[in-house]
């Protein structure tokens, strides 16, 4: 403390304070730009032997909340009829098995591997059908129409997930997650099953081909470079204003301090 007091009248003290301020706001800014890397897609499969394995895994990992027969309990909903796609989405994104009850399950590194996930999915599917895990051809973005994808995404998804899928806030602590790490399969499954607060977009309202267009738009846009420089989180003018004040005004104030600083030649 006394060290600071002794130096606070030095000419550098002003710069130091401004610098500290800049660093502090920079840290805040860092919180605004979260990044993730897309995971790789997985391919679906189902067999009768798999169902048995799946049942075993289900009992070990899921039954404490969802019940031994997936019939649902006070803490977890019934999974009969939710379909393999819902299971694959929840487990492959690490949301299930849930660690603790929150406003909303968070994306985490998955606990179970792809084969185990598919086994549970097959078991749940055997209980009451439901949407299946989309196949590789269903989520292939080869030759997709990104223009139509952009329009459908903007009309139906952007109000929650933002214009490029950077995510956004919902009511009561819930949020629409960023789509930065979602695989094409997961995006497809989410539309099909409507996890958590998300509404369902089934294959008759938005056809599989249109879903592929939307997936193509999201995945291509998120991996596209930002021709103007750093993306600033792609969340719109809020971070731009922050950077304008800190980077722009901050840098210019520093240069103004330098231009007008008293000269101390003989010190």
């Amino acid at each position, binding site marked *: 403390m006394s060290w600071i007091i002794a130096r606070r009248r030095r000419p550098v003290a002003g710069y130091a304070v401004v610098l500290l301020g800049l660093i502090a706001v920079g840290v805040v800014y860092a919180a605004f730009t979260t990044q993730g890397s897309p995971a790789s897609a997985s391919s679906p499969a189902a067999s009768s032997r798999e169902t048995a394995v799946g049942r075993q895994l289900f009992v070990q990992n899921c039954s404490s909340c969802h019940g031994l027969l997936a019939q649902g309990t006070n803490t977890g909903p019934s999974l009969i009829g939710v379909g393999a796609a819902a299971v694959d989405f929840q487990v492959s994104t690490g949301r299930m098995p849930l660690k603790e009850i929150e406003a909303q399950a968070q994306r985490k590194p998955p606990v179970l591997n792809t084969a185990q996930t598919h086994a549970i999915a097959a078991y749940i599917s055997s209980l009451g059908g439901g949407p299946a895990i989309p196949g590789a051809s269903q989520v292939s973005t080869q030759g997709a129409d990104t223009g139509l994808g952009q329009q459908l995404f903007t009309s139906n998804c952007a109000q*929650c997930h933002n214009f490029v899928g950077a995510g956004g806030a919902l009511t009561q602590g819930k949020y629409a997650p960023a789509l930065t790490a979602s695989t094409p399969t997961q995006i497809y499954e989410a539309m099909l099953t*409507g996890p958590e607060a998300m509404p369902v977009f089934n294959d008759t309202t*938005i056809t599989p081909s249109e879903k592929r267009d939307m997936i193509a738009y999201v995945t291509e846009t998120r991996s596209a470079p930002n*021709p103007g420089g750093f993306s600033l989180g792609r969340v719109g003018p809020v971070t731009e204003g922050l950077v304008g004040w800190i980077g722009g005004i901050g840098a210019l104030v520093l240069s103004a301090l330098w231009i007008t600083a008293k000269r101390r030649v003989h010190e």
Partner: protein
Amino acid sequence: MSSTEGYTGDFPPGGGPDGGEAEASRAPHRVIGTPPPAEQRTLLGTSESDAPPAPPRELPADPDDLAGASRAEKIVAALFILAMLAGFGFIAAYIGLPLGASLDSVLRSNLALGISMGVAFMAMGVGAVIWVRRLMPDVELTEARKPLASPPEDREAFAETFREGAETSQFVKRPILRRSLIAATVPLLLAPLVLLRDLGPLPGTKLRHTVWRKGLRLVISDTGRPIRPADFGSPGGMITVIPEGYQTNDNALVKATAIIIKFEPGELKYPTNLKWTVDNIVAYSKICTHVGCPVALYEQTTHHILCPCHQSTFDATKGATVLFGPANRPLPQLPMGVDSEGYLVALSDFKVPVGPSFWERG
């Protein structure tokens, strides 16, 4: 231009062999080093030779630290050369980095152009600051401020002139002249306002109505496909719909856009008008009743519809009544049925005006 003090010319700082640096620093006003070659260079020296001697110069010719100034000169020159190179770099980047079809080419071009331009200007700026701080001697001058108010005699003289003019012009004395002039300006001032009339049509009742009418199909926005209730069979489903045939009519879409939501049986409650629903599907206007943003942030677990602009929240199960936020009125419900082919159609226009409040809304 200013020369009455007698310029001593542009003496190169620290150019000469200056042994007496410390001495010089104590006497910055004295010209040190090699004197300029000719005193007679002083521009007006000859014409004012009989005038009183020129006052001492106000600005010292050289900085205290001449050796430091020489070093600074090199730095400044290096910075200016850097700026020049960066400037050439900008031109080279413009010519050498064409824009292709890929975003990477745009990124490269923008980076190269922006950084070369930025470096050029920053180098100029840094160079200029070092120049003024290290090469120009430090001075502090004091200039007197004159009071801003004019002396009383000037004010009185002005007032007299003003009075004189007012009298001479007869403007004050002749009220008919004055008033008729004022009267003449009134219509001329109103004319520009009148001219603005044709900026747009009168509102009439346009804000009360949308293009929805009996039998008009609801189609999915962007794809234009009509919807059968069975197509929309999964509870928790939501989709943006527009009137068929108006896909490219922005003026119509701005008011007519709606969302349809599918519920589990029994979830829809009063004040939702159940007669206007089909198979637990309900249609609400997508236009927020606050200031008109499209609301479609629908949470299927809580059945909240949230506006992303100002966060008004509506309860979709209860006729889209307001739960939170600045909106005052529920989202209007679109009367909906099915046509002979089983597609969802409007039964009529919205029964109340959609979108933001306006004065005549009532």
